[in-house]
Structure formats: C-alpha cells, structure tokens
C-alpha cells in the first residue's frame, strides 16, 4: 500500500508553483487590458462585486458632509443663497438674450446652409472619489450605464471642462481628467480663434499646448475654449488659461503651459454632456465611407 502523508502535512501545490500560476494569470489580464481591451467584461463583473465595498468606504465621507451640512449655520446658508440669487440676476439678461441669439443663429445657419447644431442633453452627477492610482488622473462619478452614460462623453463643472468619460460601469463611471497623460483636447484661443491641441501630463495638473509656432499670437492670460472640431466636446466651453509661455530661439515651437479652469477639488457636482448629435446627412450624399472619426475617438479614450 502506498504511503500517504497525514493531511496535517499536506499543503497543496508548492508556493512557487502557485506564484507562477497567479502571476501568469495577472500578466494575461494586464496584457488583455492594456493592449486589446478584452478584459472589460471581467472588469464589469468585479466592479459589481466591489460596488458594495466602495459604497461602504464612501460612508464616512458622506457622514462628514452630512454633519457639516447639518451644522452649517442658517446665516451661512442665507449668505450663500443671496450670493447665488445675485449671480442669477446678473446672468438673467444674458440668458434672456441667449434665447434670441440662439434663434438668430439657427436662422443664419439655415440661410448659409450650414449644419444645424442640435441642443445637447446632460446628466447631473456627483464625484464619488478620486482614483488612488498614482499613474493616472481619474475621478469616479455616481452615474453609470443605467443613467445612459456612454464612453467618450465630455464632463464639465460650473466653470469649465474637467474631462471625458472613459469607462462606464452599471452604476458608476470613470472620468479621465484633462491633466491625464493620455488625454488630449482640441482648443481655440477665445481672443483670436487660433486653433491648437492641449495635452495633459505636465507637472502639477497643468496642460501642455504643443506644436504652436514660436511666433503664434498667444499671450499670458489668454482664455482657451473647446473648438469642437473633434465632434466630442461641444464648442465654446472654457478649458484653461495660459499661465506660462517660453519662447526659445533654438526651438521651432513655443513651450506653453496652461492652467485648467475647472478644478475637481472644489465641488463634487458635475454635468455629463452627451456628445453633440449631428443631424442626419442629406440623402443625395455620396455612398458612406468608413468614418475616420471613430478610430480617433477610441484612441483618445485610452
């Protein structure tokens, strides 16, 4: 009869074998996630399992906010209320004129036979937490595919663009901030309409305005808004202001650093805009060609 060790000593496969098994599994996942994006379904399932833990982790923060709100004195609230009312009143004439201008714009565009702009819808969301991954700059918001969020939608707060939805779960989505290294946004100088593209990844959450000629007409303090030529961000949203310009004679391009207008550190409320819908093309247009814009957008989502 074969000798069997008592179960007390039986420890299963050796640690090294286990390590090799699990490490190769992890490497497989990483390659699938980084290169092919096949791991999204795995991520979705694990996300659903992790959701309760994440909500519990949020509880102390929610409690803190709740208590702070409760003890916020009526005076402070009244003051804030007054300030908001003044702001609204000050904005009212512009808002009233905006309606008329919108009408006029539609009419003029019709006269010029330009494409009409469709009004974009938006979803209100709150920032749950900022991701702890030190390699990327992301925040997680509390609306997901259940609220109709789609990857690629731009996200703004009350003063400007903060980023783009890059990954959607059932009940949450991840927003990649403009300052992330892999994020790019087409911009326009508000003063003179000069177009450029800004990239994230500069130190201190700043943006880089690359490939601007050294003699380009751009100054400190210039406001940059979205140009809308990418079809993802609606045009005219404020994004950043020029904070530093270095013109080096040795370099063909100026080195321009931008400070983002919006800050995710201040408020938790954001608005997710639906990507601008284009009206259907006229029927007599030429046969459909493969759209280059899709691959471009998917590259940006990375």
């Amino acid at each position: 009869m074969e000798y069997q060790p008592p179960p007390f000593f039986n420890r299963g496969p050796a640690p090294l074998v286990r390590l090799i098994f699990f490490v190769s599994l992890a490497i497989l996942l990483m390659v699938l996630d980084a290169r092919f994006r096949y791991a999204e379904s795995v991520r979705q399932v694990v996300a659903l399992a992790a959701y309760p833990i994440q909500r519990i982790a949020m509880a102390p923060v929610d409690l803190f906010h709740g208590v702070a709100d409760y003890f916020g004195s009526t005076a402070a609230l009244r003051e804030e209320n007054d300030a908001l009312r003044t702001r609204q009143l000050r904005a009212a004439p512009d808002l009233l004129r905006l309606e008329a201008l919108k009408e006029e714009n539609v009419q003029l565009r019709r006269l010029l036979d330009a494409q009409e702009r469709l009004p974009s819808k938006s979803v209100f969301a709150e920032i749950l937490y900022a991701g702890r991954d030190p390699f990327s700059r992301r925040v997680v918001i509390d609306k997901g595919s259940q609220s109709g969020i789609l990857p690629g939608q731009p996200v703004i707060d009350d003063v400007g663009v903060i980023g783009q939805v890059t990954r959607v779960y059932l009940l949450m989505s991840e927003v990649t901030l403009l300052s992330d290294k892999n994020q790019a946004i087409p911009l326009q100088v508000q003063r003179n309409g000069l177009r450029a593209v800004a990239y994230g990844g500069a130190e201190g959450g700043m943006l880089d305005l690359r490939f601007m000629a050294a003699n380009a007409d751009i100054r400190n303090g210039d406001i940059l808004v979205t140009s809308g030529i990418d079809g993802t961000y609606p045009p005219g949203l404020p994004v950043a202001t020029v904070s530093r310009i270095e013109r080096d004679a040795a370099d063909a391009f100026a080195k321009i650093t931008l400070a983002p207008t919006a800050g995710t550190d201040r408020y938790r409320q954001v608005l997710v805009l639906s990507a601008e819908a284009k009206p259907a093309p006229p029927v007599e247009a030429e046969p459909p060609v493969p759209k280059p814009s899709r691959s471009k957008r998917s590259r940006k989502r990375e």
Partner: protein
Amino acid sequence: MELQHQTQRILLPAKGSFILLTLALALLFNLLPWRNLVGVPDLTAAVLAFWCIHQPRRVGIGIAWTLGLLLDVGNGALLGQHAFSYAVLAFLALVVHRRIHWFPLWQQALHLLLLLLLTQLLTLTIRLAAGAGFPGWNYFAGSFVCAALWPALSFLLLLPQRQDEKPDANRSI
C-alpha cells in the same frame, strides 16, 4: 547584540472570520477617497503580509491575487496590476515567514519595508512599460509609513489570539 527571543506565549488559533474581517477593513481603508495625499499606507498589503507570515496555511497567494483584483477595479488601475504585485508580496512573505518570527518587531518592520518596496518597484515597472508617466519619488513614501505602522499592526492583529495572563496551574502544557 545578542538575539533576544522573548518567551512567546502560546497563541490561540486565529479565527477565519477575524482574518476575513481584517482583510475587508484594510480593503475599505484602501478604497477611502484619499485624493492625492502623499504617504497613505497600503494597509491591505500590510495586513495581507501579516496573515501570510502568521497564518501561511490559510492566507496565501490566491487570496492576495483576489484582493489585488478588487483593488484594481476599485481604483480604476490597470487590471491585474495589484493582483500581480500582491501575489508576489504574498509569496515573499511566505518565504520569510519562518525566519521573521526570530526578530524583534522593529526588525520585522525592516523586513516588511523591503518586501513592500520591492512590490511597489514591480508595479512601477509594469506601469512604465504600459506607457504611464513616472509619478514622482513620493510614490514610495507609503511603504515607509506602512513599515512604521507594523509594530502597532502586529499588536492589534494578535490581540484576539492572546490567552489571559494568569497561567493555569493545572494546565497540561
């Protein structure tokens, strides 16, 4: 310096529910919204290493891998990155688990510091290879904080397994 091993008391067996609870609490701690604070310790890694050292037959590489995967999704990191580094951490902890009990707590903390730095280095290499930018030297601060917390952590996690101080005269052992 002479090696001083304090006469160790015989510990009660750790309860499976207690191990699970501490791991879950550490995971919660990691998922708290820390924003961009410098030097937030990776408590999950520390608790995991603790159980791998003290209960190597019950907590091992498989559990480490699963915890890492949960953290990956929670943090929106590259899928498998924490799973990878935690599996390596668990393996290293299993390798040193017989030796480490001979050292006083602060020297154990030095052991742990080395393990944590190594796993962080692994993660960094992976992310740099995947195309991320270097996050700055602050990135490693968490490991030092974690190692500094090790004595307190071991004390806390061993508390429920201690027997009462009074030795029983009629006890067989």
